[in-house]
């Protein structure tokens, strides 16, 4: 629950002055950039909500924000603290019931992007937010559970996973599959009749992983600015595959950072 505050300095581009930023800010900005303008995004609270609202204020003004509380096309002027803040209803194109948001809007694959995170993710992008250790009936740690995640994972056209990377959270195999990524890899999603593509990116504080086109094993494809491959390997609980052509994430621009920081200052407040 601690916020990563270690500041790193990144290589600038084309002589622009290099702003200082945290790895969490880099992660949020990378998530934000993954959202295309004019698409619809199913937003959970916390980092996904921050990233989606950042995108709407920068490169994607026509991004459609959908919260599982039933608010379609919300345009909050501040960051909500919960997925059901009043500001979300006040600024929505339409507020529908919870059964409707899942049945009419999520389930048929109308939503382009879903955001997920969790306590554990494994090398096939499966996510655990249910129990850790012991067994289901007598767990070591009881987590909140599924919420909207299993069906977001199944039915959004694509899923972005956003999580801080550590050997505790990036494990060979999750203790409990709350939300399916690529199952046991390969075409396991198709065998389960899933309509969405699954997790296309895992964005972390250290870089970005993408599924191998055949095996679907998560593979490191991008490093965060000033992050070394070895750091990422050490924070991963399985022998990490690394892409032959490894890129580096563009650091946040001044504009992205200032909008992000203004946004964060508004969280849960009254405007």
């Amino acid at each position, binding site marked *: *629950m601690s916020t990563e505050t270690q500041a790193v300095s990144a290589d600038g581009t084309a002589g622009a002055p290099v702003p200082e930023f945290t790895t969490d800010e880099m992660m949020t900005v990378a998530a934000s950039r993954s959202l295309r303008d004019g698409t619809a995004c199913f937003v959970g*609270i*916390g980092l996904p909500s921050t990233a989606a609202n950042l995108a709407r204020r920068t490169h994607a003004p026509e991004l459609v924000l959908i919260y*599982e*509380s*039933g*608010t379609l096309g919300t345009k909050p002027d501040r960051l909500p*603290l*919960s*997925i*059901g*803040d*009043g500001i*979300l*209803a*006040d600024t929505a194109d339409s*507020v529908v*019931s*919870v*059964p409707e948001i*899942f*049945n009419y809007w*999520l*389930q048929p694959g109308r939503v382009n992007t879903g955001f997920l995170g969790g306590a554990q993710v494994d090398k096939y992008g*499966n996510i655990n937010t*249910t129990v850790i250790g012991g067994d*289901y009936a*007598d*767990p070591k*740690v*009881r*987590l*909140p*559970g*599924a*919420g*909207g*995640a*299993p*069906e977001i994972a*199944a*039915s959004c056209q694509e899923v972005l996973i956003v999580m801080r990377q550590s050997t505790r959270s990036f494990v060979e195999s999750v203790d*409990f*599959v*709350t*939300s*399916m990524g690529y*199952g046991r890899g390969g075409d*396991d*999603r198709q065998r*389960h*009749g*899933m*309509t969405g593509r699954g997790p296309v990116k895992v964005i972390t504080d250290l870089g970005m992983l993408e599924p191998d086109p055949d095996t679907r094993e998560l593979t490191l494809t991008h490093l965060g600015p000033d992050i070394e491959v070895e750091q990422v390997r050490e924070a991963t609980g399985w022998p990490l595959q690394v892409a032959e052509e490894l890129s580096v994430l563009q650091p946040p621009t001044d504009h992205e950072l200032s909008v992000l920081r203004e946004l964060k200052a508004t969280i*849960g407040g*009254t405007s």
Partner: protein
Amino acid sequence: MSRIRQLDVAVSELVGDGDVVALEGFTHLIPVAAGHEIIRQGRRDLTLCRMTPDVIYDQMIGAGCARKLVFSWGGNPGVGSLHRFRDAIQHSWPVPLEIEEHSHAGMANRYTAGASGLPFAVLRGYAGTDLPEHTESIKTIECPFTGEKLAAVSAINPDVGIIHAQQADREGNVQMWGITGVQKETVLASKRSLVTVEEIVDELEPRPGSVVLPKWAVTAVAEVPGGAHPSYAQGYYERDNDYYQRWDPIGRDRERFQQWLDTEVLNVERSAR
């Protein structure tokens, strides 16, 4: 026919030991005062249903009201874990807590089936997850037209459904607006229902986005201003975010919790109006 009642009278008429009880409200309009009244009346062995058992269910579980929890996400939204819920599951304190666990889509469809008088609902859900292995109310069903395999979930039909709304009129017709979640389905799925409201008005003025429950679909209405606090009632008061933050250290510690229960719930006479 709905009847206007005092909160304590309504709870004592409608909620009995061993009942299946659903208190619903998705972030907004959570019937907290009704939950506290159930604690105060010392109900036991309840099966508590709720998509998002947040602070109010943490309190009811910690107070020993529940034998079983039916849910899809048990956390303190924006804050972290529910420690009374964890303590009950991990250490059976104060009593063992059985769980029946779903996803939001599954729970929403279970209420919908209940409201529709159907024994089950169908959804694209749970595929590839470990939930069906542990939850008997999830099964597989085959489409009789395409052969496709889908999830089926059994209906929820609580003995008592409890929600909070902004307004009722003097006859007991109810109106709520803003985020209305799964509240209509909860009332319609339940054998008996109680709606607590911010105020009773002479006439319900139609509003954009409002959901209306006619009096004949509701068993009882109680006027409880502030009855959703610390959640919010759109048009009346904002969410008390500090309360959710302050709950974390109270919920973490059995003694602090017990103290809170004594001073804030058991020895106060809230709500009666």
